[in-house]
């Protein structure tokens, strides 16, 4: 498409503006986390700047607890939803079977569903089963929501899967299991790594599902919510900033994985282009 210089400048300015507004809240949190005063007001003198709240957050036993719970939930969720997503991506994108179209719609259903209601429904279900809610019930709740996402991510890779490789292996006498382990799994691995990152990040930031399903354990977003709606602590913005930094680092890792797998794919198929 022919793009004029004016068009490019105009759209770039617009994108810049959107991003600026988009990152305004993050800027506000950073500003608030550096303020020494007990109650935040803006602007403040540079002499009032402090890193004290970060030190507090890093050494607070309470925060450690919440981070621990959140990490446990995220790890369990990622493991479960990537394992399930690997197989359902094959059902979604690779195999041709009768129920496939129905299955493809079904996968989307939990995504198009209000999370707060899903969390409540699970709470009642666990209550009915006489299960005491704890971090692992939250992991189940997160998996119900995140497994469809990992399925979609791995499916994108599975659509690009070269079927002739699997067929060649089969014709050479490989068993189904061998094909899965030696051919399909390595070929889908980049998609699975991406999916793992997504699962960890989405579980880490989730609030609506955790609110109802963590029981006595409390995840980090729940604690932040409680502190925001009642009883402001200057430590809250500091924890928030640390949270943002963590997300940025993980996204950078994700970026390099995608970059790496794209380059590998291009290197493997030099004749195609």
């Amino acid at each position: 498409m022919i793009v004029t210089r004016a068009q490019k400048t105009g759209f770039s300015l617009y994108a810049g503006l959107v991003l600026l507004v988009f990152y305004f809240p993050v800027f506000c949190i950073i500003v608030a986390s550096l303020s020494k005063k007990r109650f935040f007001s803006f602007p403040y003198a540079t002499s009032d700047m402090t890193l004290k709240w970060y030190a507090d957050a890093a050494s607070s036993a309470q925060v450690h607890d919440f981070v621990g719970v959140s990490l446990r939930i995220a790890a369990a969720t990622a493991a479960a939803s990537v394992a399930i997503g690997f197989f359902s991506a094959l059902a979604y994108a690779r195999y041709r079977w009768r129920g496939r179209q129905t299955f493809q719609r079904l996968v989307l259903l939990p995504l198009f569903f209000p999370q707060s209601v899903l969390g409540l429904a699970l709470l009642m279900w666990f209550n009915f089963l006489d299960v005491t809610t704890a971090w692992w019930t939250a992991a189940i709740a997160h998996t119900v929501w995140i497994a469809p996402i990992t399925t979609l991510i791995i499916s994108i890779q599975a659509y690009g899967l070269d079927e002739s490789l699997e067929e060649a292996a089969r014709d050479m006498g490989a068993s189904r299991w061998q094909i899965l382990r030696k051919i399909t799994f390595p070929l889908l691995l980049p998609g699975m790594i991406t999916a793992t990152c997504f699962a960890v990040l989405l579980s880490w930031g989730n609030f609506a599902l955790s609110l109802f399903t963590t029981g006595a354990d409390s995840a980090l977003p729940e604690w932040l919510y409680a502190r925001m709606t009642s009883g402001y602590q200057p430590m809250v913005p500091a924890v928030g900033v640390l949270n943002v930094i963590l997300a940025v680092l993980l996204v950078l890792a994700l970026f390099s994985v995608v970059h790496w797998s794209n380059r590998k794919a291009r290197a493997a198929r030099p004749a195609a282009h």
Partner: protein
Amino acid sequence: MNAAAPQPPPEPAAAKKPARELAPALLGLLSASPFGLLMLFGFVAPLLCVVWFGFMPPKTFSLLQAPTLENYRTIFDQTYFKSILWSLGLAGGTVLVLLVICYPLAFAMAKIFRGGAAFVTYAIATSLFVSENIRLFGWVIGFMKKGVVGGTLAAWFDLQIDSLLYNVPVIILGMVYVYLPFMLFPLVLGLKMVPDQVREAAFDLGASRWQVFRRVDLPLSMPGVLIGSLLVFVLSVGAISEAKILGGQKVVTIAADIESEFTYAQNWPLGSAISTLFIALTTVVVFFALGRFDLEKLLGKKPSE
């Protein structure tokens, strides 16, 4: 779909052909089964549980009683329809605002930017992974009395303003902000499906910019528009934090109603009945919209580059 099925294997394998024809069907079912079980246990069963609980007598906690319609009578007698209308209105407003904001940006990302598109994608996607509470809290700090905006205005222009929080536009701003990625990315995918040649042909035949937008861009990117609008609508209709953190007690949404039935009021059956109505409403919307497009087109087709 059958047309694309793999070619039958050559002569030596022909004897085993029937078994091979069966295999993909079985394989598909087998690999779909872990997910299916998860959905049965973690999605279908809990929802049935909610629906059933809605028919239990008020203020009870057991599922094993004689069903009654009392909760539904309460819903229609009281003002819950108000919160339903608020939720629908806020969600609808969010979708409209997002369409206006995101369409030009998505167009630029799909058709104009080169390296810049990836940058914008990552810059926006990063926000998905930060808990929405933290991001909304940023707006609170920005907009509160003596916050970043108010303080700056006071210091630079000597302009005293009160808190900008706790009103309806700020709630919509919060929802627009939180759900922007869910509109933007489907729109980008949708716009990438618009072939450049068709647009150029339209321009060559003398179509104006507006005509190209109305007759080419919009219809061809409709799947993206629909998916984005649907996602944003469903997510924001069930949103809890925005109205609470940014809106104070100004507006009570249906999700907040449901939550308070389960927490303060301890009336689980009534909360379940409201949830059931709410679920029915969203399901109708989703099925209506999902029936109208083919998702495989969006995911399976390689975007034009």
